[in-house]
């Protein structure tokens, strides 16, 4: 393919990335950009060009050991759910924007430690970025079949580097606050991760199934090649130890690499996203490694005996077979892998450079300008220049330094350098006693050993036979041979360097931390880091500070970086959160809060320096700190409990309110009922009182009338008594205290018995009753209660029958499910409106003109209760002749004898 053609494709591809980033930045909160899959795929920035090309090279030359780089992460990923969550919480709460911030904050917010971590990262990562550029350049030349040009203007990588520098410095510095999320970059990187995996799987399938005839074919052809057996084993104990160290190395890398920290922690939007990543990310790594071996051995078969770089097999094989299309796709995949690493790493590094090195050590003074705009512009420019110069610096290293090395070895050197942060980093999470001096000493010693055992030999050149440094050791002392330090001669250079550097690093960290007490600030942050789960909501409470500070002074500092409005808003929020009034004097919480606000802009160290410039801090002893912490811990626990309790209370209040509403409704009904009841009770009492008062006061009442009055008193008393009985009866049914006792009975017989006492009334009124007694209907019901219902209904019918030619018909029908009893009369019927209402309590007394004082107004209401307790129905209807009262009883009353 021609260079121009490929350049056009690259241009289009980069353009697409810009578009995706641009789009995602605009839609920064939709579920398209803010979801666990984008998060997980953005983590796959771990798979760089090294993975994409280098793994194949290692597999082809030395067999399985390429796997170690992926085994380490896969081993530790399940623990992310605890560890990574903790790191994310600490970072979120403290507005941390880089791993340098993270480590330095824990060790007492030390400016020096932040700078040390930054330098270690720069040293470790720059060659790594250079390596990516090398991959781009090399593969470009392979695809276009051109030779590497010594003229930088003829090197495509020059232009790619510039384009990336522009892209990263634009999208990486959109926000002055470095702890803000960069949705554009994250989405673009996630997209690239999908593409690179897709292209890699594509070439894997192509090589395995189209160039060869599947796995078996490759295996059988490869097995005759030299060294096949040996490359397919781990290689005995010494190699197993190498494996072990390499796994440890990659395990550290997944936490500590600035680009991983950037993606996994800083760009994490929700803790929940971790849950998806702990299965999806290992799956991604697994898929990526699926075809490494087939491609490697495929290449070994095809290019056996030729002098080609095995790193490039994935390009060379399709090219060899003549498939230009696949070759270009593979190139694009590798290109994606390379540039996402370059972009993310340079953003991470430049944040560190600006916030942990340049600003605290140089530019802080120049940020004292009163204007927010100027300060922010300066910060962003520092970062832009940082990103730009990092990428250009890497370009220089690539041009003049790493050209000779393969991808795998440079990548591992990077890992070893970064691994020096491991003791201080993991100590920060787990160990309260770890001290600043221990951390600084450990990292520096570890780094120096790396320098001696890896960086210097690699700079001189491993294969530089003129130098005696590697072969004979420094000054010819064999114990100081860089690859066999102190006579340790059975480890590979990488494992060897890792072992010695970490050994001394850890010893120094532990030794110094245990021997010398740290200052109170370290201890304070140690508590906050280790116990982050306790402090997560009210973390400012955990900050110990004593001294004199004025709110207005702090406010002034904040305004310089946040502007008037945001400062005001932030402070209002703060006061709201802690339920405080604005005070003249600032407390520890406000100081921590202000530091946090500034941290994203200028880093933790500078934030502390700026704030401490305007406040007067008193010295506190370590003991005091511990006491205060203990107290605040208790406070926080109490606070937490209070919040929980108040939540519970709220829920309970809701429930109570609901219950209350129901009660009110019931209360209202009860009130109405009581009103009616009292009214009904007072009525007979009134009659009794009036009559007895007359009899008492008036001696002249004629004898006949006297008798009548006495008769009234008796009947009203009876009425009163009946009323009370019925009210109680009804009340029992309604509150569920009245139970129905079911037994097997003959309904016909029951009805017959019920109307027997009414025969006199019927006779008096000359009513004709139709009822077929010669049947038998056996079912379950409460004998006494049904008798009560029938009595009530029939006496009602009697009441409503006309004075002459009264007729009552009692009929019983059976159907499949129920027994229907109808009692009809030939009275004047019931008004349509009243058909339902007559079963209401006391309805009769309001709307039926029956001769008083016979009815109680409760009879039908009780009937309804009785029938409903039998799971039957009762209703009234009008026939041609008069009213019909109907009740049903379930035929097979399966309800147990309640």
């Amino acid at each position, binding site marked *: 393919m021609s260079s121009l053609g490929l350049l056009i494709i690259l241009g289009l591809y980069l353009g697409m990335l810009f578009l995706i980033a641009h789009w995602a930045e605009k839609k920064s909160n939709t579920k398209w950009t803010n979801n666990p899959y984008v998060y997980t795929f953005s983590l796959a920035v771990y798979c760089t060009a090294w993975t994409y090309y280098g793994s194949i090279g290692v597999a082809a030359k030395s067999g399985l050991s390429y796997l170690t780089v992926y085994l380490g992460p896969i081993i530790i990923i399940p623990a992310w759910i605890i560890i990574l969550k903790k790191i994310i919480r600490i970072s979120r709460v403290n507005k941390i924007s880089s791993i340098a911030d993270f480590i330095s904050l824990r060790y007492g917010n030390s400016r020096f430690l932040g700078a040390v971590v930054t330098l270690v990262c720069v040293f470790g990562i720059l060659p790594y970025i250079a390596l990516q550029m090398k991959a781009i350049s090399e593969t470009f030349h392979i695809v276009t079949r051109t030779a590497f040009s010594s003229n930088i203007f003829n090197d495509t990588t020059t232009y790619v580097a510039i384009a990336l520098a522009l892209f990263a410095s634009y999208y990486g510095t959109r926000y002055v606050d470095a702890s803000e999320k960069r949705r554009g970059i994250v989405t673009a990187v996630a997209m690239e991760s999908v593409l690179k995996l897709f292209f890699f799987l594509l070439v894997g399938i192509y090589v395995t199934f189209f160039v060869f005839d599947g796995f078996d074919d490759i295996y059988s052809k490869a097995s005759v090649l030299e060294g096949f057996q040996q490359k397919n084993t781990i290689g005995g104990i010494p190699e197993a130890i190498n494996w072990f160290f390499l796994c440890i190395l990659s395990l550290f890398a997944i936490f500590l690499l600035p680009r991983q920290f950037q993606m996994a922690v800083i760009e994490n939007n929700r803790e929940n996203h971790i849950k998806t990543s702990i299965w999806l990310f290992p799956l991604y790594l697994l898929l990526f490694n699926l075809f490494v071996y087939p491609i490697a051995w495929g290449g070994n078969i095809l290019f056996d005996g030729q002098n080609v770089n095995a790193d490039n097999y994935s390009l060379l094989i399709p090219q060899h077979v003549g498939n230009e299309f696949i070759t270009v796709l593979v190139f694009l995949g590798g290109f994606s892998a390379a540039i996402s690493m370059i972009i993310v790493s340079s953003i991470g590094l430049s944040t560190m450079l600006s916030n942990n090195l340049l600003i605290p050590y140089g530019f802080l003074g120049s940020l004292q300008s009163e204007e927010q705009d100027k300060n922010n512009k300066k910060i962003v420019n520092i970062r832009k220049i940082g990103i730009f110069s990092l990428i250009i610096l890497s370009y220089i290293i690539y041009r003049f330094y790493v050209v000779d090395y393969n991808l795998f070895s440079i990548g591992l050197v990077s890992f070893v350098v970064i691994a020096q942060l491991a003791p201080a980093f993991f100590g920060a999470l787990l160990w309260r006693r770890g001290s600043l001096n221990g951390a600084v000493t450990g990292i520096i010693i570890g780094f120096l050993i790396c320098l001696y055992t890896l960086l210097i030999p690699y700079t001189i050149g491993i294969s530089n036979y003129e130098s005696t440094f590697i072969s004979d050791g420094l000054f010819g002392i064999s114990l100081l041979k860089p690859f066999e330090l102190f006579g340790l001669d059975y480890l590979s250079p990488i494992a060897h360097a890792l072992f010695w550097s970490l050994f001394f690093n850890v010893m120094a960290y532990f030794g110094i931390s245990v021997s010398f007490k740290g200052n109170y600030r370290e201890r304070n942050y140690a508590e906050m880091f280790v116990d982050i789960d306790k402090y997560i909501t009210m973390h400012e409470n955990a900050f110990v500070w004593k001294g004199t500070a004025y709110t207005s002074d702090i406010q002034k500092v904040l305004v310089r970086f946040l502007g008037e409005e945001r400062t005001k808003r932030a402070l209002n929020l703060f006061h709201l959160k802690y339920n405080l009034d604005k005070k003249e004097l600032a407390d520890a919480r406000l100081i921590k809060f202000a530091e946090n606000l500034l941290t994203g802009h200028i880093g933790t160290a500078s934030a502390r320096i700026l704030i401490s410039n305007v406040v007067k801090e008193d010295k506190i002893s370590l003991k005091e700190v511990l006491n205060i912490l203990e107290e605040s811990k208790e406070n926080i626990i109490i606070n937490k409990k209070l919040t929980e309790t108040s939540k519970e209370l709220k829920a309970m209040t809701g429930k109570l309110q609901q219950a209350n509403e129901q009660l009110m409704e019931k209360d209202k009904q009860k009130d109405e009922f009581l009103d009616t009841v009292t009214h009904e009770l*007072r*009525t007979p*009492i*009134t009659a009794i009182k*009036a009559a007895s008062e007359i009899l008492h006061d008036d001696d002249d009442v004629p004898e006949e009338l006297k008798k009548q009055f006495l008769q*009234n008193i008796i*009947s009203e008393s009876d009425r009163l008594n009946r009323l009370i009985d019925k009210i109680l009866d009804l009340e029992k049914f309604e509150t569920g205290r009245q139970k129905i006792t079911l037994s097997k009975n003959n309904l016909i017989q029951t009805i017959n018995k019920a109307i027997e006492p009414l025969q006199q009334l019927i006779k008096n009124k000359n009513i004709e009753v139709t009822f077929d007694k010669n049947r038998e209907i056996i079912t379950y019901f409460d004998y006494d209660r049904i008798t009560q219902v029938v009595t009530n209904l029939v006496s009602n019918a009697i009441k409503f029958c006309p004075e002459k030619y009264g007729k009552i018909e009692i009929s019983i029908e059976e159907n499949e499910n129920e027994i229907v009893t109808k009692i009809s009369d030939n009275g004047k019927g019931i008004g349509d409106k009243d058909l339902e209402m007559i079963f209401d309590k006391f309805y009769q007394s309001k*709307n039926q*003109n029956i*001769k008083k004082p016979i009815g109680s107004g409760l009879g039908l209401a009780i009937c309804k209760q009785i029938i409903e307790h039998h799971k039957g129905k009762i209703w009234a209807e009008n026939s041609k002749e008069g009213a019909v009262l109907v009740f049903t009883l379930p035929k097979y009353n399966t309800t147990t004898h309640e």
Partner: protein
Amino acid sequence: MSKKILIVDDEPNIVMSLEYTFKKNNFEVFIARDGQEALDILKVQLPDIIILDIMMPLVDGYATLDQIKKDERLQHCKVVFLSAKNKESDIEKGLSLGADAYMLKPFSVKKLVEQVNELLSN
């Protein structure tokens, strides 16, 4: 000349006591068993005072009073509510509708007579 009184109540036993008492006190007594009957009687009779129950079938005491108040011929006519509705709000409602007095059931016969006489002497 004896005064005319109309007793409106659906409780026959209460009516009986009232009828006896007011007859004994020289009233000419008319009796209605509900509001409708009362209004019918009022078409032909102009009593001086009306004893009115509230809770009655068909036309209740409130509606009856309403009709009475609308009738020009009955302007002079005093109305006493006699009811077992004894809540503060019931009494207020009764008086606000224009009743001249509100007496609670159970009542004292003596006091009722006194109340009626007082109203009539004004």
